């Protein structure tokens, strides 16, 4: 049968089936099982109304259970068994085997890098774009153009960026933008400004921002009176954890400033960007940042619009400059939204597969967890280790899951 015909039939059967199911099951409930007539009419109506919600919910619950809830447990079980031994229970052997593989640790450390860089960059640029486009006339057009990559598939984005990163031999004209720009630097004054001073300044700003974060995180611990509300007990270790991560990042960025000035760059030679170990991961991350920034921008821009006008007017009257208004009035008021955007992008990053699969397929030390898992499941056919790595992704998602559920419960109560 032709697939198009099959699709039409599926739509008709699927939609018709759903509507038919809902209609007839309701009819059955009201007419046959508990008819709203006769001497038990009142009791019957109540009973029917108790059952009806489950009629409405049944198909969705069934699909959710089968396609999302059941696989979590099935995968957990698969990760504890060995397919070659006929599915025998092997305890944590798959995990042990996985932890011994250097490729897994490569994927893990790359994923951590992705988790820091992509949400931070997307949110920061998105916030910048939201603020800049907020008050200008053609802001909506600008926003929809920055938002556009959202509609492009990861695979399409991979092709787009492969063209940007393309490399030709030194004696030919470069057709990749990045190499064309790179070859314009010759080690002169311009190169020093753009490739050493500007990055060093950016790193310094980043380090200063982190130092501010450390200060904010540690302050309530040192001076107990600042915490107005009684915070839950687990805030203290959480704050300490963030402070330690931030200090570590400060250390890293200060080290990078040094290496920016000491590095000898190979001017005049076209680079194969995607095969440079360590840096190639950043070139892949740029693709995801490019896609996700629009998302961050749209949501943050709505949040900025929602800030009460009075708070800004009051700040203007008090003589605050635009930067103070932005950092001290606007950002604190949309902090909640920034967190939501950050976590949403974090989840996207954890699942990132297509970009790495299409651009490097995990070669040249660009492996990430999702692609590692695909490798194990469908190339090595090792279901145990593949499922174990899927469980690692699940484990990394769990804190966000718990946080979301906690918030949802708070809201519906």
């Amino acid at each position, binding site marked *: 049968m032709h697939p198009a015909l099959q699709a039409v039939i599926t739509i008709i059967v699927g939609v018709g089936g759903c509507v038919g199911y809902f209609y007839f099951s309701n009819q059955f409930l009201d007419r046959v099982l508990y008819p709203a007539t006769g001497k038990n009419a009142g009791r019957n109506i109540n009973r029917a109304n108790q059952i009806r919600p489950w009629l409405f*919910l049944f198909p969705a619950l069934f699909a959710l259970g089968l396609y999302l809830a059941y696989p979590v447990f099935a995968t957990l079980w698969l990760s504890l068994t060995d397919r070659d031994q006929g599915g025998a229970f092997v305890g944590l052997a798959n995990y042990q085997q996985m932890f011994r593989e250097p490729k897994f640790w490569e994927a893990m450390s790359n994923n951590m890098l992705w988790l820091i860089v992509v949400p931070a960059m997307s949110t920061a640029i998105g916030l910048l774009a939201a603020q800049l486009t907020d008050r200008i006339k053609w802001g909506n057009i600008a926003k929809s153009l920055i938002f556009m990559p959202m509609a492009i598939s990861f695979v399409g984005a991979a092709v787009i960026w*492969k063209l940007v990163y393309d490399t030709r031999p030194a004696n030919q004209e470069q*057709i990749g933008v990045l190499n064309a720009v790179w070859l314009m630097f010759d080690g002169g004054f311009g190169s020093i400004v753009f490739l050493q001073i500007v990055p060093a300044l950016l790193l310094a700003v980043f380090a200063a921002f982190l130092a501010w974060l450390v200060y904010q995180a540690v302050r309530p611990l040192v001076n107990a009176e600042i915490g107005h509300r009684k915070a839950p007990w687990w805030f203290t270790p959480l704050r300490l954890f963030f402070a330690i991560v931030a200090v570590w990042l400060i250390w890293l960025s200060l080290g990078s400033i040094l290496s920016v000035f000491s590095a000898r760059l190979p001017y005049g030679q076209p680079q194969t960007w995607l095969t440079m170990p360590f840096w190639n991961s950043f070139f892949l991350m740029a693709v995801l940042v490019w896609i996700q920034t629009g998302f961050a921008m749209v949501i943050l821009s709505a949040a900025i619009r929602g800030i009460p006008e009075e708070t800004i007017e009051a700040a203007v009257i008090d003589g605050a400059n635009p930067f103070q208004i932005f950092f001290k009035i606007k950002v604190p008021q949309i902090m909640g939204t920034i967190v939501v955007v950050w976590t949403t992008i974090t989840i996207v990053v954890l699942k990132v597969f297509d970009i790495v699969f299409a651009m490097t397929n995990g070669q040249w030390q660009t492996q990430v967890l*999702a692609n590692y898992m695909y490798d194990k499941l469908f190339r090595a056919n090792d279901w145990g280790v593949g499922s174990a790595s899927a469980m690692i992704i699940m484990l990394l998602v769990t804190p966000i899951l718990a946080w979301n559920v906690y918030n949802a419960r708070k809201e519906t109560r």
Partner: protein
Amino acid sequence: MNVTSSKKSPLVWAVHISVVLLVALWLFPTVGLFVSSFRTADQIANTGWWASMFTQERQRPAIRLSGDEAQVDGEFVIEGRLFAADNVVISRWGVNSRDPEAYEPGEEADLGDGANLTIEANGAFRMSSPQSFGDGRLPRVFTTAEAPPEFTLQNYRFVLFDPNNREGMAKAFFNTMTVTIPATIIPIVIAAFAAYALAWMRFPGRSLLIAAVVGLLVVPLQLALIPLLKLHNDIGIGKGYLGVWLAHTGFGLPLAIYLLRNYMVGLPRDIIENARVDGATDFQIFVKIILPLSFPALASFAIFQFLWTWNDLLVALVFLIDSTGETTVMTKQIVELLGTRGGNWEILATSAFVSIAVPLVVFFAMQKYLVRGLLSGSVK
């Protein structure tokens, strides 16, 4: 007041310029691919796409002369044109790869044995010799020419309509469409009913179910691959359209239920209660009142699900594409091309653009609903 406005104006300019730069930076990669899809393989390989907009002077690849010999005034003469296009202007030319810019247009080059060659600025050449050129190969010429921007639809013709092109996108395009449409419509129907129950019906465990939906929202679908593939194989669906429709339905449901419930909860209570008082059943209320009022939310989810299924690679790889490759989708086809045709940018760019075009149209046409959905989906 005057002081502040004059102090502000440089800042306003800075804002405008920054936004222009940001937008340009964000558009640049996509435009590059778009422009490349209209250039020939030769053009792409020789110059960056950003140069294609302008008339450019560049050295062209060597052209071997060809033409029919004619006898004029006791001389053997071959005349012809170097380029099919007539708007090319040659600035220098040569017959030797070591000195490709030896002559000006109109000058006469000595080819040895008394043979001469003249090339005019418009590409017309005249070669003459006292002896016949015979069957030997004619000389190659090197030209440096100004060429105006030149674009072609040839790539699209090849990628979409050439029946001999086994790597064409036409079949993959229809396969993608076949996956996408049912996978978008069916979850909407199922989710709408569930969302109504979660929003407007009272029953024990409701808030628990809502929390469960929120939790499932972030469960990575990576976990579902093996157990469900196994399940599909066990119940006889195997790899195919039915499997991929079901999988997309399952994976799309949490977001669908979440978005629709959030929207339906906000609908005015009076309307629904008045209808109840008038004796409408829940089914009637749902079909006649809730569904029409929820159109914006339905549209936003439909766009999400459409973009997501159209752009998906992983679910199609696992649940749909079997070893025959008959059911390949566009994303998979492009990944294949990246492997086998990594250097053929004209084919890659065109294929990628064919797959990007439909989502882009949907995006720009229905951006309003997309933004609305995003906002209700993530802002508390």
